[in-house]
């Protein structure tokens, strides 16, 4: 229990630190509010000072940080100048779309990579070598390139719809049709994300599994006549899982990054295009909110990884 509390406290401190970092990002960015007014000869400096006071810009930076943080905790995520409305009023749809993409890809990637990794570790020879080569090739392809290659193949095959999140006549579909349409649009981006992370996961699962299989207790179990499947899944896999759990957090963070690229390429209406657009137009509140959201997801992913480790490793649970 102490371990869990410690991890949660750690997460909270980290989030606080990231919020300070983001606030500094907001204030350190070149260009100050009312710079445009300053160039206007009709606006007196007294007016600008009054405006600055009205928005609290004359206060010390620490006080402004607390004011901003308080607003954030109350769900006030700032004002988007290019959209002309509060950030919170439009940020949820992109967030939901990104999470849909990333979480689907994370779950699928783990479901695929665990059997492959274990299979590679337990069957030596040709399979292991072919998978090794395939993962090396995939690992050495930069993510934007991988995305473009798969996109090119998909364009040739013309099997899945390309780009966007729904068909033009989406609203006319029944519920089942809507789900099917969404899944068809989800297929290619998820495939790219899975291909991007699969080699990393397979390699680590394989390595960790090989480590455990060399342990004396596995040999003892084998010699003692325990069935092969039972040795692999019941005796070796749980022990091999412990060094793998940190990769749960890693995979979420990594897939968030890759999904940014994929979203931009595939015009998926997620956080990626929003983030990029807000950088181009210097819409700093949106930039900061997206950064905070992405951090939140990654930190939560790490927390889940810690909890999984706690649940699986009796050495931590009982200490």
């Amino acid at each position, binding site marked *: 229990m102490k371990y869990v509390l410690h991890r949660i406290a750690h997460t909270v401190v980290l989030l606080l630190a990231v919020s300070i970092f983001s606030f500094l*990002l907001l204030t350190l*960015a070149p260009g100050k509010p009312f710079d445009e007014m300053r160039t206007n000869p009709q606006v007196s400096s007294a007016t600008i000072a009054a405006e600055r006071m009205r928005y609290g810009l004359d206060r010390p930076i620490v006080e402004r940080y607390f004011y901003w943080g308080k607003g954030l905790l109350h769900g006030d995520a700032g004002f988007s100048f290019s959209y002309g409305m509060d950030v919170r009023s439009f940020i949820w749809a992109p967030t939901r779309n990104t999470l849909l993409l990333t979480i689907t890809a994370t779950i699928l990637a783990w479901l695929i990579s665990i059997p492959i990794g274990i299979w590679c570790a337990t069957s030596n020879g040709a399979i292991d070598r072919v998978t090794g080569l395939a993962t090396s090739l995939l*690992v050495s392809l930069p993510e934007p390139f991988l995305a*473009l290659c798969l996109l090119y193949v998909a364009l040739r095959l013309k099997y899945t719809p390309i780009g966007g999140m729904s068909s033009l006549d989406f609203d006319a579909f029944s519920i089942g049709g809507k789900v099917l349409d969404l899944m068809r649009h989800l297929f290619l981006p998820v495939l790219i994300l899975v291909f991007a992370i699969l080699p990393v996961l397979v390699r680590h699962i394989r390595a960790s599994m090989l480590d455990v299989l060399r342990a004396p207790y596995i040999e003892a179990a084998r010699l003692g006549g325990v069935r092969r499947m039972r040795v692999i899944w019941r005796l070796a896999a749980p022990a091999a899982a412990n060094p793998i759990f940190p990769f749960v957090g890693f995979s979420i963070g990594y897939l968030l990054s890759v999904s940014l690229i994929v979203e931009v390429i595939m015009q998926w209406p997620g956080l990626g295009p929003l*983030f990029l657009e807000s950088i181009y137009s210097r819409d700093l509140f949106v930039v900061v909110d997206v950064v905070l959201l992405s951090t939140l997801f990654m930190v939560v992913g790490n927390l889940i990884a810690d909890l999984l480790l706690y649940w699986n490793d009796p050495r931590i649970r009982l200490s």
Partner: protein
Amino acid sequence: MRHLSLLRISVAVIASFYLVAIAAEFFAPYGFAVSDREHTNCPPTRIHVVDESGHWHLRPFVYRYVELPGELESYQEVRSQRYPLEFFIQGAKYKFANILSGRRHLFGVASPASIFIFGTDEYGRDQLSRFIYGARISLIVGTLAAAVALFIGLGVGALCGTFGGWVDVVIMRFTELFMALPWLYLLLAVRAILPLRTSASVSLLILLSVVALVGWAKPARLFRGVILSAQELDFVVAASVIGGGKWYVFRRHVLPQTGSLLLTQAALLIPQFVIAEVTLSFLGLGVGEPIPSWGSILAPLARYESLALHWWLVLPVCAVVPLFFSYHEVTSILQRDDIPPMM
């Protein structure tokens, strides 16, 4: 032994990429901004060895491409005249590093024919030349950023490892902050606070510093670990016991222990940082047009029409695979601990 020869091949591949990038003026048949308005979106030039009448030629040759009358961007070979492929051909004048000027290019064909091995882009610029010049930007940014990140990482790691105490705690918490964000979001966030439209050299500097700033945290943690464990080694303890000064012991005994980590991290970070540069330029946050980088020459592909119609625009993607594959091989060989020491 197999690993050693694999290592040699990989290092040779990496070195040749750098060589081509450094001497881009010589290796690229055309300049990166030279646009041939009569050959926009032209497919790769076919290289022949057999001519119309069925004769074989020892020297490969190309035909001139002309646009089909009435059809936009469809090209046809003019089979009446052959243009042999020539090596060390006199071409457009260039100045290398502002000192050496020359006209020789590795290969090319006599005008009015032209050779576009990777085809041309929408402005009729040779994709291969842009790829070669783009290697310069991408590799320079990636390599220098890795060097800077490793330098900072080593410095910070040494600081934490030798001083310990609250300095160590504060800095290590600080590195966690850098690792708590998804790297691309962090990269873009740091990029966001810097000016967007700048001159080429400033953008290059911005790219370099952004990538290095985002990437120093992880090596710093690793260096700290190695330095901490190196200080426990018997001969290091002995060196300080017999009266070696702190700085002397660090420089003479502790620092050399980080050598192998430095090498492995370099082989790991350089490709990562090249990818970071490629990603930033791909998203339009790199060095502006017309200067190419591996990311910006791929940016038009994000529009499906151009990807569907112009398959040759994917060729640069395939061309970088050997480089990244070699870096990957070097890293995995360096990380193995069963290599026999080279004698």
